[in-house]
Structure formats: C-alpha cells, structure tokens
C-alpha cells in the first residue's frame, strides 16, 4: 500500500474511533521521516482509566502479520459498526495513550525495517 494510503487509513480509523464520542475538538498531527512516521491525535473528551488502558492494550498488540497483511486492508475504510483499534495495533511500531488537560492524546509510530526510533520521540521504558 502506498504511504499516503496508509496514512489516510490510519487517520480515518483512529479519528473514527474518537469521533464515536462526539468530541468538540479533534487535533491531528503528522510527522514524517523517510523510514517512518509519527501520528498524534487529540480529543477533548473525558475517558476513564479503564478506557485508556484498553486503548493502549489494543494499540500495542503483538504483531500479527497473518492478520494485518489481509484484514488490515479494512483499516479506515469499513466504518460501519465500531472502530477497531486492534486493526491499527497490528500495524504500528508503538502506541501511547496519555491524558491531556481536556481529553486524551494518542500517539502512533509506524515504520519499516530501517525505522529509527531516535528520530522520533518514542518514550523509553
């Protein structure tokens, strides 16, 4: 899939997920490098700790190439029904979900084999 298509699908899926709660504000930020990208999405809705924990778990699933290579094609395209963060989770290098003053921020990092996490700001654990 072309990079532009991947980005569009990601934005669509993650935005679709947050828009289900009808936020008043939704901010999307994209930072691209040659071998990867960082997508950040913020809303202004209250989310419980349980929701945030579930989001982070779904977005940091172990990689499932047998699923992402096939069913990943539905990401951001087939929006009838609930958005599914695990479709994203199989495809991202890392994801973080943090509270902001008014809502949450979801950070997604994607990249190929040459992805260098130091060029982005993936927090070290």
């Amino acid at each position: 899939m072309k990079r532009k298509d991947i980005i569009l699908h990601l934005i669509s899926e993650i935005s679709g997920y947050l828009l289900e709660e009808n936020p008043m504000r939704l901010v999307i930020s994209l930072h691209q490098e040659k071998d990867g990208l960082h997508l950040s999405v913020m809303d202004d809705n209250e989310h419980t700790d349980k929701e945030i924990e579930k989001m982070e778990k779904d977005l940091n699933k172990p990689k499932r190439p047998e699923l992402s290579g096939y069913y990943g094609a539905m990401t951001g395209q087939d929006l009838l029904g609930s958005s599914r963060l695990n479709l994203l989770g199989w495809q991202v290098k890392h994801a973080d979900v943090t509270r902001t003053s008014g809502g949450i921020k979801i950070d997604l990092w994607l990249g190929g084999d040459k992805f260098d996490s130091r060029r982005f700001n993936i927090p070290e654990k």
Partner: protein
Amino acid sequence: MEKRNQFLLVLLTGIILSFIVLGLITDGSGDAIEGFLRIQIHSGRLISDFIPIGGIGGTLINAAFAGLVGLILVIILKVQLSGPTYAAILTIIGFGFFGKTPLNILPIILGVFLSAKLAGKMFREYIIIALFGTALGPLVSFIVFEFGFTGAAAVAAGLTGGIITGFLLPAIAVSMLHLHQGYNLYNMGLSCGFFALFAASLVRAAGHNFESTMVWYSGGSPVIIWLIPALSLSLVIIGLISEKINGIKEFLSIQKLSGRLPSDFMDLGSLGGALINSGLIGIFGSLYIFFVGGSFNGAMIAGLLTIMGFGAFGTHLKNSWPIVLGVILSTLIFGKGLASPSPLLAALFSTTLAPLAGQFGILTGIIAGFIHLIMVLQTGVWQGGMNLYNNGFAGGLTATLIVAVIQWHRSSKEDLS
C-alpha cells in the same frame, strides 16, 4: 502467547493423529489406504461426500492429511496458532470429508505464495488466504479428472489452473472484504465463489457442461455419528480444565462480542473460553442435526468442524441462533425439508453471517438467515460446484446487501444541517 501456540499445536496434532488412527482401525489399513487413493482421483465438486467414495477410513485419513498440509505450512512460516489459524486448520480437516484432498489444495497454496512474492510480501501475510483459498480445490481436481485432459497434460493443466487461481485470490479477497465490511466470516467463500463464477463461465463457454453431483452418505455409522460430539465435548472439558472458572467467564465475555472479522476470540477472550465456545457450538450443531433427523456424514462433519473452528474466530452461541432461526423459517416457508442436504448445510454454514446478528441485533440476524437460504439454493449451480464454501459465497452476497442497506439508512439519518 508461546504457551498458547504450543498448546494448540499439541491439540491440532492430536486431532489429526487420532483421525489417522481411527481411519486405520475402522476400515483396516489396506482398505483405508485404498479408499484414500480413490478420493485423490475424485473431482470433489459439490456435493461430494467422500465417505461413499473412499470409505470411512480413507476419508478420515484424507481429512487428516489435508489438515496436516495446513498445519505444516503454519509451523514452517512461524505463524501464530490462534483463532484464525485454528479455524483454518479445522475447516481444512472438515472439508477433507467433503471436497478437499492434499493434492488438490497444493497448487492453490503455491499460487498464493507466488502472489505474495510478486507483491513483495511475506507469504505468512497471505497465509489465511492460502489456507481458506483451498475451497477451490475441486477446481483443480475438475480440470485434471473431468475436463477431458489425460495423463501428464491433465496434471499440468490442473497444476496451472490451481496456481493461477491461487495467484489471483489475494487481490480478490481484499476487495471482497470491503463489500461486506467483515460481516461475512467466510470471506474466502465469497472470494472463491466470485472467482469460480468466471472459471465456470469459461468452462461452459468452452462447451463443457457440469454434470450435477450428489454423493451423500446416509449409512449411520457410529464412528461418523459420534466423532464430532466426542471432539466437541473434549474441547469443552479441555477449556474448563485449562482455565476453570476463568474459562467460563471468558466464554461468557465472548458472547458479548459482535464477531466481526477479524475477531480472534483466543486473543479478545482467552484460549479456554474460545475452546469452550468452540466445543459448545459443535455440540449444539450436532444436536440440531439429530433433532431435525439429518444424516451424519462427510458434509455434516465439514459443517460442524468449520463452525467449531470459527467458534474461535467470530461465531458464538449468542450471535448464531438468530441466523439459524432465519434459515429454519425460510426453509419451512418455502416448503423445503429441514433435513434435506442443502437446507441442513445452510443451517450450519449460515453462521458465516453471525456478526450481523452480533452487531445489529436479532431481527437483522433472522432476516440475514432467511435471505441466505434463498441465495444458497441457487449459487452452487452458478459456479459449477467448484467452490466448496458455497455458503460463504451466498453469505457474502447476503451480507453485502444488508450492509449496503444499513449503511444507506444510517447515512440518510445523519444530517449536519
């Protein structure tokens, strides 16, 4: 994850080995192997129950070896054993009673492999497509044994046909997903049916008519009657022993999921919960066949193993019953028999539409089941019986219709002004 992988490897290997042993014991090794060889040279188009063709022993061995091909592939490619691969292996084993042979599935798998190479992808990214794409195994057998070729030319033609089929499947499969948006579990059924429409049309254009096939075992062997109930009960017990109360809790939590593709119940719930679900689906499916007076045979085993497999990948008791009820209503209203082959198969395989009930409710599920039966009675002939997942094809068409209507209705209701 690694523990789950090993557990499922042992479980699936155990199922395959027990089928082989049971096959050898039931008919004796000589007859069983002869029967197995007879099956290899049968076209396997719908509806071809392999039991009258190869005997119970030969059929069990065929099913085991077909499943073994799939399992070996998963192991070699280091693909995780979980809901989708569990569903795929059980489906292949099931259809080893009803159309698939180790020989007729290999060219298709090879074709998908070549497609992955050309697309610059790892083969394991297409493994699910390869495993379920074996639904078109009868197309390969048809070319070799029915189309008029002989000898080496027949084998070459079958091999070529299978490879081309497998090569095109990934492209078709991804497109078909968008039609029903994951609400038809047997997406490869829709994809293979779509491809088979063109293949069957080409065959007819070349002047060949498909002879209708109906091979249906009604012998009532205790081995065939009790095989799936025993396996199903074993799965429930294994699920309970492995996770005890937690297994039951996760089984109950699985019932709340819509089941929409791709819902790996072993991941979204737990291994134990998914096995309990899988086993209970097998039990209820068997009870249904028993209560309507249906025959336990190769086709029914294919159906039961498939729905049990998908008991870890989309189907559960709560999202299945409305669909099956819809099929029952449709069968009765149109004057068909519940125990007749097509409605009976439809009742089991209609659970491909379970996510529709899971997401949109009971009424949608009943309507989906109702429409599904009407469609499935026609679609087999369209594709010359070459697509074993005929119910997946009909289900895909049904799901596409329903999804289109729901989507239109929802977009019509929402208004920014």
